[in-house]
């Protein structure tokens, strides 16, 4: 049996395909995404048992709307983590984009569609600055984005004089408050749409594959003919656009562009930005992403936060629980990967 399976190993996946299917099934049950789905279900049951308000229409609506933003923030970080880097300036870019969009609406009375595109263009431009400085200097993105976080935020505060833009197009604010079937926020649909597009990018386009290759091993990618610097810059631009979308979502939700909407320097975004991709199984060294995993990870975090709030757990405890969740998830993931490695399943 052994001899035959070895001889046929060169016949890729013919005789072994059945065995491989079993392995693939096993691999799915051991996958991060499956683990996250199980956790989401378990916590949903716990919360709805302990607090019936959890399944109320209002609560579900709020959960969907908040997670829409958090997932988008997670995506924004994910597309930079896949290059093996970090983007600490996601919050600063998000707020700057939102303020720019708000300014376009208030100062020029622009309709919301062009104003939103203006905001996203600002996100892309700031992301491009990050990317260009990183690839040209050769320094780690940690240093560069730590600096640009302060620079972007500081310039934004200077230009806006820390004032909010409250004359937001009513259609846009209406969009943020709309309820489809009484429970679904259109913001969540936007996020799901973006998730589908991102999956498509990584599965169905040469650009997405190049991003992953450049992230996993830049030397090998370059010697195989990929323009690595350009690809990494594009990842940062994409991160900027996604941060811009998250920022514009917040504007739609609150009906105003407020400089402090993501805290000082946009730092309030950092925890959700990292939690989603890390729980979702994005490799911190780059080269591997899971769009679904990030979506589920960010959703789980948002659900935990709102569930704990419903149970009237103090806000400072929520931070502690989230920290514990991150640590536990990472440890479980480590055990899972060790198991797969030992059995040579990955």
């Amino acid at each position, binding site marked *: 049996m*052994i*001899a035959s*399976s*070895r001889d046929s*190993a*060169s016949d*890729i*996946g013919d005789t*072994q*395909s059945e*065995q*491989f299917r079993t*392995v693939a099934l*096993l691999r799915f049950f051991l996958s991060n995404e499956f683990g996250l789905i199980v956790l989401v279900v378990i916590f949903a049951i716990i919360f709805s048992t302990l607090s019936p308000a959890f399944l109320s229409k209002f609560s579900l609506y709020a959960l969907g709307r908040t997670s829409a933003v958090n997932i988008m923030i997670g995506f924004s970080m994910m597309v930079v983590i896949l290059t093996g880097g970090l983007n600490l300036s996601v919050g600063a870019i998000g707020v700057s984009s939102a303020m720019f969009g708000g300014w376009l609406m208030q100062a020029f009375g622009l309709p919301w569609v062009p104003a939103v595109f203006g905001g996203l263009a600002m996100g892309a431009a700031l992301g491009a600055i990050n990317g260009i400085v990183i690839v040209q200097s050769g320094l780690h993105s940690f240093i560069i984005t730590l600096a640009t976080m302060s620079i972007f935020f500081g310039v934004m505060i200077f230009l806006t004089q820390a004032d909010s833009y409250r004359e937001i197009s009513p259609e846009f604010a209406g969009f943020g408050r709309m309820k489809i079937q009484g429970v679904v926020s259109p913001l969540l649909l936007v996020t799901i749409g973006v998730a589908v597009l991102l999956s498509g990018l990584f*599965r*169905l*386009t*040469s*650009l997405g*594959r*190049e991003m*992953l*290759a450049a992230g*996993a*091993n830049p*030397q*090998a*990618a*370059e*010697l*195989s*003919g*990929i*323009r690595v610097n350009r690809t990494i810059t594009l990842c940062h631009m994409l991160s900027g656009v996604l941060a811009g979308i998250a920022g514009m979502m917040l504007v739609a939700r609150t009906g105003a562009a407020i400089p402090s909407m993501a805290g000082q320097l946009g730092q309030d975004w950092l925890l959700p930005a990292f939690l989603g991709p890390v729980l979702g199984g994005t*490799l911190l060294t780059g*080269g*591997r992403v899971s769009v679904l995993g990030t979506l589920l990870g960010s959703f789980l975090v948002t659900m935990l936060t709102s569930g704990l709030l419903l149970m009237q757990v103090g806000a400072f405890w929520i931070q502690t629980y989230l920290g514990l969740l991150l640590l536990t998830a990472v440890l479980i993931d480590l055990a899972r990967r060790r198991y797969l490695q*030992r*059995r*040579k*399943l*990955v």
Partner: protein
Amino acid sequence: MRGVFNAQGVLKTFPGVTALEDVSLTLTQGSIHALLGENGAGKSTLIKVMTGVYRPDAGSMTLAGAAYEPQNTHDAIAKGIGVVHQERNLIPRFSVAENIFLELMADQPLRRIDYPKLYRDARRWLDMLEIDADPATPVERLSVARMQLVEIAKALSLNSQILMLDEPTASLTPHETDTLFGILRRLRDDGVSLVFVSHKLEEVQEICDSVTVLRDGRNACESRPLEGLGRQDIVRLMIGRSEMIPDWSARDRTGDRPVLELSGVSTGIGHSNIDLSIHKGEIVGVYGLVGAGRSELAKAILGKFEVTAGDVMVDGRRADIRSVADAVGRYRIGYVSEDRKGEGLILIHSVLENVGIPIWRRLAKLGGFLTKGHVRKQTEPYIRKLEVRTPSLEQNVGNLSGGNQQKVSVAKWLAAEAKILIVDEPSIGIDIKTKAYLHELIRELSDAGTALLLITSDMPEMIALADRIVVMSDYRVMGEIVNNRDYRAMSEGIMGLIQDNEASAA
């Protein structure tokens, strides 16, 4: 002689693969035991079982008469089994002494380190292995050969009674190898039991006393004396048939049109006035010692390093190569790197993803759309042609054996239909069968019209394959020889050109 270590009927399976089945091995005190087999035959798995990385599914092991069941690598080290891995396992910025005693220092992390004592103790091991280095020197400043010796010192300092060496000579010069062998013989005479893993059969025959050969995860022979076994006997045990030495006749392809020409090329990293041409269907070899600037020249042709003077012509026209992407996409130049793991492959990605990289852009439809099916259709024939052994195209390249990894890096450029292929040290860490296969493939490619630039330090490989040999030294071309396949004349000619340079420099 008594058996100091014994493994009996070891079985180790992974899903879809039986790595070892009914494998036995006996080591005697004071001997050097060769562990041979092709890539993927199970040598590494056996070593990992012996050192506690894997636990066997069946079978038993004894060490000095007692049952031996290591739970982890620490356990194995504590019981006196040490390994010197093929990959460096030293911390570059730490000193020689710190590296040698790393394990011991880690046992008592809070104790103040007594550096004078540490250096004295290290000195003892360095003297014993005749390593001419200060114990306080950071390891990164040592030559590769000395790093190797420091690793051996590290393993010995742990009182290893069994020392396994995985391809210890892979990066050593002949002289350094001789020194290492002297040390190994002395260790053997002191009663250490050594396991020697190597692809170089000449070395095995020179230094080993007994041999175990693995083939497809089973014993092809078990712990038999090496005496009386000839090279061909060993090869037959390893691959199940005799070695075929290709007897290709000399050819002259210079009459065909030149595909790649360099004239008076100087580069930003120090090459000066390089002249080189490759004709259609020709294999041009580049020989030189380590540091002669051969791989760097390849990368300059690819556009990774800047060409500061002179002309690069492809197909008779001046080529404007500003990046590797230009070289690959516009001029169809491919490069098989000597550093498979660092530069050649993306280990955490699948076989399919790796082979497809250079052609993604070419295959992509309007808007950059590209499905797995497209890539598969274009690449699978080449992956099959090269007989890459993998359970599926989705398998991560990092899980394949060295030979199969090399096949993947070559398949990549076949799929990309490279017109000019630069092959850098194609047979490093590759077993006999794969090596012979690659040689045939290279010859076949040239017959089909590909222009090949072959960089190799393996003289027999060079003389078997190249049509013309360009000799490089100090980032310059020393001269060129037409290869008439006469080994002695060729190697003398090559060494003569290199020595000319050294003489003129002195």
